[in-house]
Each structure stands twice: as structure tokens, then as C-alpha cells.
């Protein structure tokens, strides 16, 4: 087994080194911003994957957790002057608590019905926030411009700090996901996903472990939401609570490969690239083009590779040695 693990560790460190050096090579702020968007998408995809991939409970309402993270850290910062570093953790905790309250009834539903319930919850919260005076409704919340620096997590002169913060957050999220994948809890998740009845017949409480999965997933999703608020310095229901956000988060993981550690990272790379380029190509006249592309990708993944891009890669890797073996036999 060690022979397999060693190259994996080396590969992971090489990948991390590459990510650390990349923005030093690519210095154009617009390109750096593009890299940040990919990391943000990747972090959300990895977080979604914990409930949607490992535990197999497809949520199409993750914008709720994202929005809770964004609104919690922003409100704490505006009203109490709390540092967003703490606000981020607070947002995660609030989102986890909310996810458990929401999961309790929703996990009585299975499959598509669960997914639909999550859409409904997300829509309800969006409408509530849009009509909430304390949260400034549809107008949204702005963070003050003047207050910059590490403590305020606002940087005006360079994109680099944002890049390294989101990279750090992504690494933490991947590590948490990796720890779950390897622990006994990861096996319970997969057991629940593959054969829920058998898991129940062996004494695994389905609801309890689904709640664990969604609590962890929503915690990290909310942290991503807080980061978004700090980076954009403006949030409104349309940008952090919309259905499109939920779909994008799920699609990143599904496209890359559900239930795999780094599939969502790959998915984010592909999806965000397409999204940004379509925006550059079509501009505002093509608003909605990205939605058409999402739809197309869902169809392609569903028809040709339900295991996502990671599934395709595994398939390739399986075929290449067998091709090699054939060539050797012929020679």
C-alpha cells in the first residue's frame, strides 16, 4: 500500500506548490481574479461533495448555506465590528445549525424528493431575506471601503491576499473531506448512499449520519459565502441566495466526479473557465448563455459519464495499461 500512497503525497504537495507559485507567474489582476473564481468554485464543490457525493443526498439548495455565511459575517462586521475571520466561523456554525434544522424533516424524503425540498427551502429563504428590513432586503449589504488590511480581510491594492486566503480555505476543505473519506464515518456515508436499507439493518442510523454530512458540508459552504462577501464587499439575495448559485455548486461536483476527493476541483476548473469565457465572448447580450452551457453539460454528463470527468480519467487509466499490455504481447 505504501507504494501507492507515496506518489499520492508527492503529487498532492506538487499540486499545492504549483498553486502557491501560480499567481506569482500570472500577474495580470484580471487573470488572478479568474484563478480566485476557480478556487472559490472548487472549495464549494468539495464542500457540497460531502453530502451530495459521499452520502449521496443531492442538495440543490446549497445557496442557503452560502448566503447564511455571507450574511452572517457581513452583519456581524457591520453591526458589531467583528473581524470577518471570526465572522466566517460564526457563519459556518449558524449554517450548520440551520442545516440540521432543515435536514431533520427533509431527510424523511428520498432521492428527487429530497432535492426538491432543498430547492424549496432555498427559495423560501431567498424570499424572506429579500423582504427583510434588517437585512436591507433586495438592496443588499455593502462593506465599508475604507477599512482595509488583514484584520478586516479587505484588500484593495492586490488580489494576492484573496488568492492565498481562498487557497488556504480550499486546502482545509479538501483535508476535511479527505479525513472523512478515510474515517469510519466515510464508510457509513457510502453505505447509506449504496444500500440504505442494509445500513439500517446493521444498526446505522441513517438520519444521524446524513445530518453529520450536511452539517459539515454547510459549514464549509458558509465559509465560502463569507469569503465571497469579503471579496466583493457587496451582497444581495440575487448574488448569494439565488437558485443559480445552488445549481452551480452542485454542477461543479457532478461535472468533476461525485464522491471523489479532487473531482470537484477539476469540475470548477472546467466550469468556471467556460462561464468566464462565455461572459467575455457574449458580454451582456449573451446573459443566460452560461445557463445554456450548464444545461448542456448536465445532459452530457448524465448521458456519457455519470461519474464525471474523474470517471473518464479512471476509464482512460484503466484502458492505457491494457493497450500497453497488448502492444507488448504483439512485440
Amino acid at each position, binding site marked *: 500500500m505504501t507504494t501507492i500512497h507515496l506518489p499520492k503525497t508527492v503529487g498532492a504537495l506538487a499540486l499545492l506548490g504549483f498553486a502557491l507559485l501560480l499567481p506569482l507567474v500570472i500577474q495580470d489582476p484580471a487573470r488572478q481574479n479568474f484563478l480566485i473564481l476557480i478556487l472559490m468554485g472548487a472549495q464549494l464543490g468539495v464542500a457540497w461533495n460531502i453530502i451530495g457525493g459521499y452520502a449521496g443526498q443531492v442538495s440543490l439548495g446549497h445557496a442557503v448555506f452560502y448566503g447564511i455565511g455571507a450574511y452572517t459575517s457581513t452583519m456581524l462586521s457591520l453591526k458589531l465590528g467583528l473581524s470577518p475571520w471570526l465572522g466566517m466561523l460564526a457563519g459556518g456554525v449558524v449554517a450548520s445549525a440551520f442545516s440540521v434544522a432543515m435536514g431533520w424533516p427533509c431527510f424523511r424524503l428520498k432521492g428527487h424528493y429530497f432535492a426538491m425540498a432543498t430547492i424549496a427551502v432555498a427559495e423560501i429563504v431567498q424570499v424572506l431575506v429579500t423582504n427583510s428590513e434588517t437585512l436591507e432586503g433586495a438592496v443588499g449589504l455593502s462593506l465599508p471601503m475604507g477599512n482595509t488590511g488583514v484584520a478586516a480581510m479587505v484588500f484593495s491594492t492586490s488580489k494576492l491576499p484573496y488568492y492565498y486566503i481562498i487557497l488556504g480555505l480550499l486546502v482545509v476543505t479538501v483535508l476535511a473531506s479527505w479525513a472523512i473519506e478515510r474515517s*469510519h464515518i466515510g*464508510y*457509513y456515508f*457510502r*453505505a447509506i448512499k*449504496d*444500500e440504505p*436499507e*442494509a*445500513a*439500517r*439493518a*446493521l*444498526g*446505522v*442510523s*441513517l438520519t444521524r449520519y446524513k445530518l453529520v454530512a450536511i452539517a459539515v458540508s454547510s459549514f464549509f459552504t458558509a465559509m465560502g459565502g463569507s469569503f465571497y462577501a469579503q471579496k466583493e464587499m457587496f451582497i444581495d439575495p440575487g448574488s448569494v441566495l439565488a437558485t443559480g448559485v445552488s445549481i452551480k455548486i452542485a454542477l461543479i461536483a457532478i461535472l468533476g466526479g461525485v464522491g471523489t476527493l479532487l473531482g470537484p476541483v477539476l469540475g470548477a476548473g472546467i466550469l468556471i473557465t467556460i462561464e468566464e469565457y462565455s461572459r467575455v465572448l457574449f458580454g451582456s447580450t449573451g446573459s443566460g448563455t452560461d445557463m445554456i452551457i450548464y444545461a448542456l453539460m448536465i445532459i452530457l454528463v448524465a448521458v456519457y459519464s455519470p461519474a464525471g470527468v474523474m470517471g473518464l480519467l479512471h476509464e482512460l487509466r484503466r484502458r492505457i495499461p491494457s493497450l500497453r499490455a497488448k502492444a507488448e504481447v504483439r512485440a
Partner: protein
Amino acid sequence: MLDVRNIQSSYRRVPAIRDVSLTLSKGEIVAIVGGNGNGKSTTLRTIAGLNVLDGGTIQLKGKALAGMPAHERVRLGLVLVPEGRRLFARLTVEQNLLLGAFIADDPVHRQEMLEFAYTTFPVLGERRKQQAGTLSGGEQQMLAMCRGLMSRPDLLMLDEPSWGVAPKLVTRIFETIQAIRERGISILLVEQNIHRALEIADRGYVIQTGRIVMQGTGKDLLGNDMVRQAYLGM
């Protein structure tokens, strides 16, 4: 050990079992036999808590089970090996077994049960790192039974253990059921392979359209004319 009285259960208001009563004492093998769609599996699933109990009472070791969720019944020593085995196909043989030990935290016992599984079925030991989905039907059934044993049940309920198993291995499966009983574990067995089931059972119940219509020792039922005509084609 188990006392089931007049239980009823239904699927979307269509009654599947109307009136089933049965008892099982410690160390017994009891078989429920009957044709397809007569409520055999539903009876086991209702006892396990996977189906809703509409009426009647179920007592395990003197404790009423009504309303208790399925996963908590496992802690009382009640384990169901479901029909069709329901293995975690993409996990390895060993991971499947360890999941079976979900409620058994004691590592010594866990190791002991792994060894029992591997000595009883050496093929499982040879394939412990292999994905469960790649095993043959018979091997999968052995694995499912061993997985059920991992939590050290007092009562093991087996739903169609000979389903999809090569005839050569069926004998092996039934021998194992007897070997499990030797370890002091009681067995409630549901089978379509009526002859084999009644041969090893201490007592048996015949179920028809959701009702127990006959009961007796395994030998009596095997010799009964009605059973022979209806189910054994003799």
C-alpha cells in the same frame, strides 16, 4: 426470545400480512415457508422495523419493539440479513464486515468475528481486499451472513439465503446456518427452498396470503400432505 402476536403490516394500505403470530426460543432455528407474495419477507422486515407495524405486538427478550427505529433494534441483538444480500458492492469484503460491526465497539470481539468469518469461509479471507460486488452469488451470501454476525446478534433473521446461489453452494449455506446456531444464536429463516429449510428447522410456520395457516416441527410439516402437495409437488 421472540414473541410475535397478531401482527399486521401493509404497503400503501394494501395489507401484506394480516395476522401473523410466531414464537422462537433461544437457540432455535425457526423457518417461515410459503409461496411468493404471501408475506414472508414482510414479516421479517416488520420484525426488523423496516416496515411499519399496523397492529399486534412484537416482543424481543420481553421488550416491546413497537415504534422503535430499525437501527436501535440492532442494539437489542436483532439483525436482519436482507433478501438479495444488499452488500455494499463498491466496498471491500473486509470493509463490509467492519460495517457489520457498527454497534460493536469492542476491538477484541471484532477481530474474533473477522476470524470466524475467515475460518468458516476461507474464500472471504482470500478476497478480503476485493470489492464485494465482484464475488459470486454464493460468496456474497456468505459475506452477507458474516456481516450480519459481526454485531454479535442473539437473533439472526435470514431472508432467502439460498437466493441466487449455485446449487452446490446451497448445501454449504444451510450447513453454516446450523453452525451459527451452534454458537448459541437463534435463527429465524424465510425460504422458498421449503424442503431444505424444513430439514434444518426445529419448527416451521406456513404462511399463506398474509396469515399463518399451519405450524409444527420441521419434520411434521415436511410429512404433511397439504405441504407436500402445495409446495413440494409430491
